[in-house]
């Protein structure tokens, strides 16, 4: 019974892609899916950090920190996985992209360092000056991280070789708006009372800002980037879907259907990343005209990494289920970060 089954398995890792699958294209999609997961999950951490600026009462600030406390470490690791996957599967794209955007990468890293440290340090002391400074650092890091990441994505998509372009700066702003949308929707699920009521309109405002920012960025960017085909069916479809999801977010939010609103935001985040991937395809780095086929590693490492990811990613998903289940439901009014 086993023999016919074995015969269908590839005999050697070097013989060709596993099961004859188009692994290069699948990995291109997977790399962006992982980036999208990072942007959705850590996105609400960033958004909560930005909304931290709007809360002045100590109890409410603690509530915000408590809402992301157990989760943000895990959320941020998706960025590490994204970097590792890009390196493992498209090493030449990883190398040219990261070295070309040298200063921007350091801006991203600096912002992430501040954002990561700030809430941890905030809780270390309980005097006013300390809280004021680390509270500010938390807000700045939480806004700067998605901004610089957005600029990086814009540079990548439009093949910008300098520090940034107008279009990539607009992408940065759009991503900041999107993370605020994400954060407010998350607080809708995770908090009660004033925090939820008062952050919701801010989220809706950011939602209204996000759409024109994203569209303007695309239109401006496409002028100098011929590979960005705006009028194709997938692009228009994704843009239409985003508008629809934005409407769902606002209507559901007003109706108090917090989970539906949050899901609509998640859809928009993945929609944005899918749009970037679609516009890039089949290039992986337009600035150097590097295509997926040029950049993909050879068969043996590709097959190995594929087996690793096929086993591990479902496992990782199960960790997140356990984690979010353990801390399900809204945080209490009096709960805090530490």
């Amino acid at each position, binding site marked *: 019974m086993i023999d016919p089954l074995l015969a269908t398995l590839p005999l050697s890792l070097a013989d060709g892609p596993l099961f004859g699958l188009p692994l290069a294209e699948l990995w291109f999609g997977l790399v962006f899916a992982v980036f999208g997961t990072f942007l959705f999950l850590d996105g609400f951490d960033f958004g909560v950090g930005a909304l931290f600026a709007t809360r002045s009462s100590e109890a409410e600030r603690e509530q915000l920190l408590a809402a992301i406390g*157990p989760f943000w470490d895990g959320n941020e690791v998706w960025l590490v996985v994204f970097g590792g996957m890009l390196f493992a599967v498209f090493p030449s794209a990883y190398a040219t992209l990261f070295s070309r955007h040298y200063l921007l990468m350091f801006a991203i890293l600096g912002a992430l360092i501040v954002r990561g440290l700030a809430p941890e340090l905030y809780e270390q002391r309980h005097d006013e000056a300390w809280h004021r400074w680390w509270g500010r650092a938390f807000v700045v890091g939480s806004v700067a991280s998605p901004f610089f990441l957005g600029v990086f994505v814009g540079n990548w998509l439009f093949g910008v070789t300098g520090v940034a372009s107008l279009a990539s700066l607009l992408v940065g702003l759009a991503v900041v708006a999107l993370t605020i949308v994400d954060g407010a929707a998350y607080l809708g699920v995770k908090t009660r009372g004033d925090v939820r009521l008062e952050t919701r309109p801010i989220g809706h405002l950011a939602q209204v800002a996000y759409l024109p920012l994203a569209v303007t960025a695309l239109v401006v960017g496409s002028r100098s980037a011929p590979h960005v085909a705006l009028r194709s069916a997938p692009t228009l479809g994704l843009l239409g879907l985003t508008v629809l999801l934005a409407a769902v977010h606002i209507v559901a939010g007003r109706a108090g259907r917090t989970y539906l609103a949050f899901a609509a935001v998640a859809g928009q985040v993945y929609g944005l990343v899918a749009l970037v991937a679609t516009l890039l395809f089949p290039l992986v780095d337009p600035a150097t005209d590097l295509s997926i086929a040029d950049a993909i590693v050879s068969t043996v490492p590709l097959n190995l990494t594929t087996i690793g990811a096929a086993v591990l990613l479902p496992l990782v998903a199960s960790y997140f289920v356990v984690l979010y289940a353990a801390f399900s439901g809204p945080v209490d009014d009096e709960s805090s970060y530490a």
Partner: protein
Amino acid sequence: MIDPVIASRLQFAVTTIVHIIFPVMSMGLAPFLVYFTWKEIRTDEQVYEQLRTFWTKIFAISFVVGTVTGIVLEFGFGTNFAAFSTTAGELFGGPLALEGMMAFMLEATFLGIFVFGRDRVSDRLYMLSSVLVGLGTWLSAVWILVANSWMQTPRGYEMATKNGHPIVTLVDPIAAYANPRFPWMFVHMQNAAVLSVALFLTGVAAYFVWTNRDTEFWRTTMKIGLAALLVTAPFQAIHGDAYGRHVAETQPQKFAAMEAQYETDSAVGLKLLAVPTSLDDITDPHADDLFVVELPFVASLLASGSDPGATITGLNDIDSEQPPVAIVFWAFRAMVGLGTWFIVLAFWGGYRWLQGDLFEDDLLAKAFAGSSVLGIFTVELGWIVTEVGRQPWVIQDVMKTHAGVSSSLSGTHALATLIGFVGVYAALLVLYWYVVVRLIREEAPTRPPASKRETTVPEEVVPSDD
């Protein structure tokens, strides 16, 4: 303007040297936390709950700083060492991706439960979380060392050209990743991490036992730390000795630099103590000009494993640039010297423990307190020997370090980020030190656990008065 190669290497050195502190803390603390959690759940004794709660705080802040500095390293391969990343990506990228998926995810998600979930999840899931967090920290080291050991003793690859760039292609994954260097590095590193944290626990506890002999919390910490030290300190020396033999076989140049052996010679003695007779020897420790206390034949014995007359190839007879011999030589000496001191300290403490007066010996307490961060310092020295010793190669005999630096990098940019990192990392170190010291002084229990006290005594917060 500064050479981008020099700036990139300095930047990598700064970011790695600072980063390694935090994984050492989390890898070393992990087994202790598993033990504390297990004891807390099994015995319900409050001292274990205190131990688990307190050391988890140190673990959590170490993990956060380790994460943010680790992302810098991962991205640093792309930003500063793009040529290396392009050339070695097929062999080097995979382990990094697997580290993220297999190790980091495990650690980061279950840490959420471990830090915040004591009252929210069952004992069983909580216990499991402590084990999975620990497993994550150790698996992280597995993948990093798989990647690093391949750079030290590369196997299983072929040279090829792709899109006009030279690359190494993976042809034999088992040869490449089940690398001969890996087990040596892994055991040496993991034992070093546990040793370093054991020393830290014992040192901090000894200080508080010495200043305030009543606290069960610190007495228990000291005993547990010392017990771990008694196992890890001698083992590190035994293992290190055998590891040295492996280095002599596979990287003769590094071994010669460790011993400052310039001329090829047989029946070589081990320089137990090496004192420069002139200041010049600090920067160029030429063996003939040092005042040396030597163990005859031992270096030959070390290198060969059995033959006291074995020949050691000198640096002058190796057909390559030399690594910075002085750094390797002195770092190696300092590492071995400190390692020996840790063994002395462990046996001294063990002897006092047997005598039943572990907590009465003030000199011992001072020695431990003074040595509390020396373990981590010694790990740094070990990595300096490993990484500087293989220069000029970034991949031994395959690619030189200067060839791995991003070709697009300008000296101005490299210098700007170097200065930025030195500033940010200095601030990180100060903040981390401040937080850890503050936690130790203000959050560690200073009174015996409540369960051991009369129930009529009211609970009160007593600030430590050290």
